[in-house]
């Protein structure tokens, strides 16, 4: 299992921010697998997330830049109002096409694109939210061999998003936020 994953994508919407903070508080220093966070957020309170998260973790946190190569040990955040795609050479592309599930960035888009590139080297995690975004992407990623974790709907502040995902596909693990952190720590 060690070092077998090359990227961890975490998608979330309403009620997911506190979960993310809790997860990253528990990730041990020096953790090497890069993270990509795709969160629905309001364009107007934009860059605060990068700052808030960097207080919770020793890993470098940055909003991605277009064509940037994915680096080990970093936490990347999708910019507001752009879709994010992953290229075969493990760099990011931005895309300003139509919203998907009323969302840009859309979690579906990131799960699909990253699973096409990383296949069974990808871990997808879907958290709390009030929207069905992410469900179709998880189903797709699962077919590509990626590992799927869904936050336990019983714990999620808004259970709709994890529930939608579980209706569409089978998660490899359904975990609460503390166990998500522990699971990630066991990976590298």
């Amino acid at each position, binding site marked *: 299992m060690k070092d077998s994953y090359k990227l961890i994508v975490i998608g979330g919407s309403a009620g997911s921010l506190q979960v993310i903070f809790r997860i990253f508080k528990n990730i041990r220093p020096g953790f090497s697998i890069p993270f990509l966070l795709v969160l629905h957020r309001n364009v107007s309170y934009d860059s605060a997330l990068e700052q808030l998260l960097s207080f919770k973790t020793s890993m470098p946190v940055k909003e991605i830049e277009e064509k940037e190569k994915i680096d080990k040990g970093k936490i990347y955040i999708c910019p507001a109002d752009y879709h994010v795609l992953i290229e075969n050479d493990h760099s990011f*592309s*931005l895309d300003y096409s139509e919203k998907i599930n009323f969302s840009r960035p859309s979690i579906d888009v990131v799960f699909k694109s990253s699973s096409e590139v990383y296949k069974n080297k990808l871990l997808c995690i879907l958290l709390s939210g009030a929207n069905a975004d992410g469900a179709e992407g998880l189903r797709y990623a699962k077919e590509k061999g990626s590992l799927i974790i869904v936050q336990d709907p019983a714990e999620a502040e808004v259970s709709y998003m994890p529930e939608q995902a579980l209706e569409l596909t089978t998660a490899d693990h359904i975990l609460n936020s503390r166990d998500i952190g522990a699971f990630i720590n066991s990976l590298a």
Partner: protein
Amino acid sequence: MEVIITDEEIEVLLDDMLQQYGYDFTEYSKASFKRRIQRLFIMDKFSSFAALRYRIKTDQDYFNHAVTEISVNVTEMFRDPLFYKVIREKIIPVLATHPFIRIWHAGCATGEEVYSMAILLKEANLLERSLLYGTDLNPLVLDRARNGIFQVNQMQQYSKNYILSGGLQEFSSYYTANYNLAKFNEIFQRKMIFSTHNLVSDFSFNSFQLIFCRNVLIYFEKNLQGKVLDLFDNSLDMLGFLALGSKESLRFSSIAHKYKQLEDREKIWRKLK
């Protein structure tokens, strides 16, 4: 059930489009191009990759439709209002010192940005001595830009953007609403020239004091981005301005040393050399 078009099949399509129609998408960002092709495949209900390929190769009209669907034509008036506020307050006064003003909107899609700029020029009493060129590789979207007709249900958002950009007029005074359509005043169209131009293969066609190219470079690979920036550099007057999308930059490009970024937050550069 999952439609999967392989990377090899994408290469085949890229080749066909280049050979058959002279459209070179080979240096477009692959992930984005592939996603658009998959979307087209599902939307038009093809049964196999071979069927899609055949249709594109043998049917020019379908190819035009495919280009429209592959290229991203999402745009709005006064998108990023604070960007337009900077144009209004910092760039327009400089343009005003020129006897004649030429502006190029590269990759203008359905023209919403061109109309936004024309409104700013009108409000500064500069429209009469301005010419706005809008270009796109896709003739179908340019037809819509030329007509100056937009969905009326978008006007509320555009009006909000306009006010945030520092607009003081009644936004609705610039168009006539009829049923679900809003037709913009012809004083604007008289100052606009729309024409096809492919940033990948066409040359510089004039010189400008201001070039807009927002959210186009993100779809290009690095090498092509560099070529297109050179094209803009060749098309820009000394002390002219280049305006890019909010996540695009001149940083690391070969022309970067000739330019100075205007404001930290907005992606506007001035040509100094």
